């Protein structure tokens, strides 16, 4: 068995890459998959706190690369899901401590014993981003329905095209259906038309995402959260299942309101 390597990137910072990685990795583990996620943001370690694993770190990815520990020693097992692991970024080094070939080597070592390797890319289009995409079999681009995030996502998609990394898929994060209905937020259709790439999921704005990261428990573990449902759907699509998109962005405000009230969603 060999894992699929998925890199999550965005161009702009703060659009929800780390949230997406923590949630997709957890959702895949909830489905019984063996998952390793890697924090690729050297110097700005974050995935550990979002997943609630910050107290368990002994070694990090740079320790592996520089031979101070074995790969297994840097893999931190999740509190809840024994088949879920996280490899932390180094906090006191810079991104030049890692090269694209280091990432390829680590992913190749992880592949035989995992189903998915998910890499959290740093913001930007520089070294850290290049490292993060080097080993990717598939790239997910996260954006928000907002001019600066969409513009940066387009730059990243252009670079992925030039690097022949295959067709990236889009996660549209933090969509506010009410604003979309009032035509005060770009709709999913607008963003897809602008970027010209395929959609893998729309995640609605949801305060439970912040509550989840406050607790170090990704929102997918919250069965009632809409964002959690959206991330669970994306994880099914990553496993090749055909899951219909949640009805969030439609213009039929009244109808979706009725559906929400009557609990048909």
């Amino acid at each position, binding site marked *: 068995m060999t894992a699929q390597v998925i890199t999550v990137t965005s161009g702009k910072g703060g659009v929800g890459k780390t949230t997406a990685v923590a949630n997709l990795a957890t959702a895949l583990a909830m489905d019984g998959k063996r998952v390793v996620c890697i924090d690729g943001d050297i110097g700005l370690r974050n995935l550990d706190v979002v997943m609630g694993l910050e107290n368990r770190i002994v070694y990090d990815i740079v320790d592996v690369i520089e031979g101070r520990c074995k790969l297994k020693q840097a893999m931190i097992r999740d509190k809840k899901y024994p088949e879920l692991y996280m490899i932390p970024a180094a906090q006191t080094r810079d991104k030049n401590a890692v090269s694209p070939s280091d990432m390829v080597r680590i992913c190749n070592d992880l592949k035989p014993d995992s189903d998915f390797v998910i890499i959290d890319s740093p913001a930007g289009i520089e070294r850290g981003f290049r490292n993060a995409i080097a080993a990717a079999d598939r790239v997910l681009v996260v954006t928000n329905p*907002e*001019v600066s995030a*969409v*513009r940066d996502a*387009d*730059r990243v*998609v*252009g670079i992925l*095209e030039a690097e022949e990394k295959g067709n990236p898929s889009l996660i549209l994060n933090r969509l506010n259906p009410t*604003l*979309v209905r*009032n*035509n*005060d*937020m*770009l*709709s999913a259709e*607008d963003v897809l038309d*602008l*970027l*010209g*790439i395929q959609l893998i999921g729309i995640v609605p704005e949801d305060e439970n995402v912040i509550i989840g990261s406050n607790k170090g428990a990704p929102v997918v573990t919250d069965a009632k959260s809409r964002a959690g449902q959206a991330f669970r759907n994306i994880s099914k699509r990553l496993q090749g299942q055909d899951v219909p998109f949640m009805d969030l962005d439609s213009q039929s405000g009244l109808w979706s309101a009725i559906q929400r009230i009557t609990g048909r969603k």
Partner: protein
Amino acid sequence: MNFFTRKKSATSAKERLQLVLVHDRTDLTPAQLEALKDDLLKAISKYIEIDPDAVQIGLERDGREQRLVADIPLRSVTRNRAG
């Protein structure tokens, strides 16, 4: 779209992004595009007579593909000959 005359912000966001993405993707500033148009018209004018005011040249997108689209009406040759 809406019943009021105020243009909603999502519409202007989309229009502005459409323009900015075309220039980002082609790495061509609006000023460079104007210069390109001028050069193009000069080159064409060496061979055929055109109506510079009726010319439309612009960048268009189709998915992730960019196109330079030119609509260049020619001055009627027969009319000129008759005159």
